[in-house]
């Protein structure tokens, strides 16, 4: 009945309302503007790396004259390849261990019942509150006595798991419906298997966030590498220790520092781009009704 009377424009489908379209456009405009604003620091970093030192004194986004001297210097005068490899090794190792231990522990705190769980969890939260400055000396003395200073093992040992990561995984596991675990239990999956095959895949977004942050955290860590193997032994230097060679009390080699920073930033960017694809909405929604 209806379709015959409007046969002329049968296929006509009115577009989205104008207000909605306008709203969209405004949102995009704002987004792009803000994105550009957020891009400024990077642009600044990039442009500084192509400046001469005297030019760095002024906030100017276009290098003039344009020089790649800083890049050559960073590559030739300093062993940034080695620093990057060291950092990569540490960041990958520490991130993997953290992801595993934090999600395992976070899962236990979220879902397994055991006496003392709440007290232990408060302890975990408690560790957040202890400033590094307070624990530096005891930790350093301990590691010295165990001969773990001056190589990577001490650093990896103390960075194996962070309370922030564990806490975050716990919070995330709390939001995953219990039904999946119950099904897994009945399907004869043990506690570890339930965790590994069912819960962990469902925590994909959280894992992705942690992978990004932990990788970046280790990659950018300065304080502990400095204390634990920053003494001499240049073959152990991380990217950040390497970058520290570029600034002194009264002088900073800004072009080199910024060139180095960009080198230092690329792997994190890659990690970010890889892992951000794991932010998939409503992963758990499809499995249950209720």
């Amino acid at each position, binding site marked *: 009945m209806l379709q015959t009377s409007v046969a002329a424009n049968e296929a006509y489908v009115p577009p989205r309302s104008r207000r909605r379209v306008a709203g969209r456009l405004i949102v995009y405009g704002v987004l792009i503007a803000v994105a550009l604003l957020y891009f400024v620091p990077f642009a600044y970093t990039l442009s500084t790396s192509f400046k001469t030192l005297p030019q760095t004194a002024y906030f100017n986004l276009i290098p003039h004259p344009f020089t790649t001297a800083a890049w050559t210097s960073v590559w030739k005068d300093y062993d940034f390849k080695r620093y990057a490899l060291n950092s990569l090794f540490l960041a990958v190792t520490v991130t993997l261990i953290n992801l595993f231990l934090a999600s395992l522990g976070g899962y236990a705190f979220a879902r397994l019942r055991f006496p003392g769980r709440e007290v232990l969890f408060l302890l975990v939260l408690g560790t957040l509150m202890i400033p590094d400055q307070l624990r530096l000396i005891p930790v350093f003395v301990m590691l010295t006595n165990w001969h773990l200073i001056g190589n990577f093992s001490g650093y990896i040992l103390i960075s194996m798991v962070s309370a922030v990561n*564990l806490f975050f995984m716990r919070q*995330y596991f709390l939001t995953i419906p219990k039904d999946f675990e119950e099904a897994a239990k009945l399907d004869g999956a043990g506690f570890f298997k339930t965790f590994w095959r069912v819960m962990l895949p469902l925590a994909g977004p959280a894992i992705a966030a942690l992978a990004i942050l932990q990788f970046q955290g280790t990659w950018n860590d300065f304080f502990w590498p400095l204390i634990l193997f920053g003494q001499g032994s240049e073959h152990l230097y991380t990217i950040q220790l390497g970058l520290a060679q570029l600034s002194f009390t009264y002088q900073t080699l800004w072009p080199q520092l910024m060139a180095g920073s960009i080198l230092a930033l690329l792997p994190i960017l890659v990690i970010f781009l890889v892992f951000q694809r794991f932010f998939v909405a409503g992963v758990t929604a499809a499995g249950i009704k209720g």
Partner: protein
Amino acid sequence: MATTTTTASESLRRAGRGSLAGARIREAGWGYLFVLLPMAVFGLFFIYPLVYGIYISFFEWGILGKVHGVGTANYHTIFHDSVFRRSIKNIVEYTVVVVPLEMALGLLIALVINAKIRGRAFFRSSFYFPSLVSSAAITAIFIYLLNADGLLNAIIGGNRAWFGDPSTALWAIVGLNAWTTAGTVMLFYLAALQSISTDVYEAAAVDGTGTWRTFWRITFPLLKPAHFFVLVVFGIGALKLFDQSFIVSSGTGGPVYSTYTPVLYIYNTAFKSAEFGPAAAAGVVMFVAIFLLTLFQRATVGRSEAG
């Protein structure tokens, strides 16, 4: 088991393979196993230093160790130290402002880039950029922006040195940190947003819920576990402010004590003055204060954190 001491429950226990045993004990065993390594790390490298710190706080203690016991004198010292008292005032003001700001900004960005928009990956990356760029560059830029002849003054007119003026230095740090930390907060929120079931949004859409109301009545409450996390972690992070105040003031906490923080106090007292007793006492005071605060948060915000 909720059974009381009736004979029925007795026989039940006997029948249940000896004791309360069985599944419960196995579950607990796995629980302990799962948290064993993390707890060992925390115990060795956090709790032990903390306990050690508590011990130190009752001594005069130098670089080479114990000198002699002083009772609670270190606590008297710090509480009578106007610098320490000022640092507490600063940090409370700072935290109260910066944390909500970080949360709001982080959540806002997370929401925007979680929306179904074209080029989501692009926006995600660009909004995360400030978190990627080295903090040295960010701080340098911020100092440029907030200089007496910086961009901000150029826009609003005036010639205030935002980092150099005692009345604004702390707020300049607030701005700096809110801006750089928002990316991290955003990531946590972004992850948390994914755990919200999509059909809830569909139901809300059919129910004619506007964007604003969907956010406040659906998204926001369902993010409760994330709020609790962000509040605790970034609240504590704010209370531990050190780096930026150190850089901006070259370690003096200036101008006129306006950026002095408790951790800076601990740092200076311990590593510059080598007075580990008062430094430890300050650390303990901070720990206790934050711990009580966290317990309080847990009792309020965290209570029903979607268990």
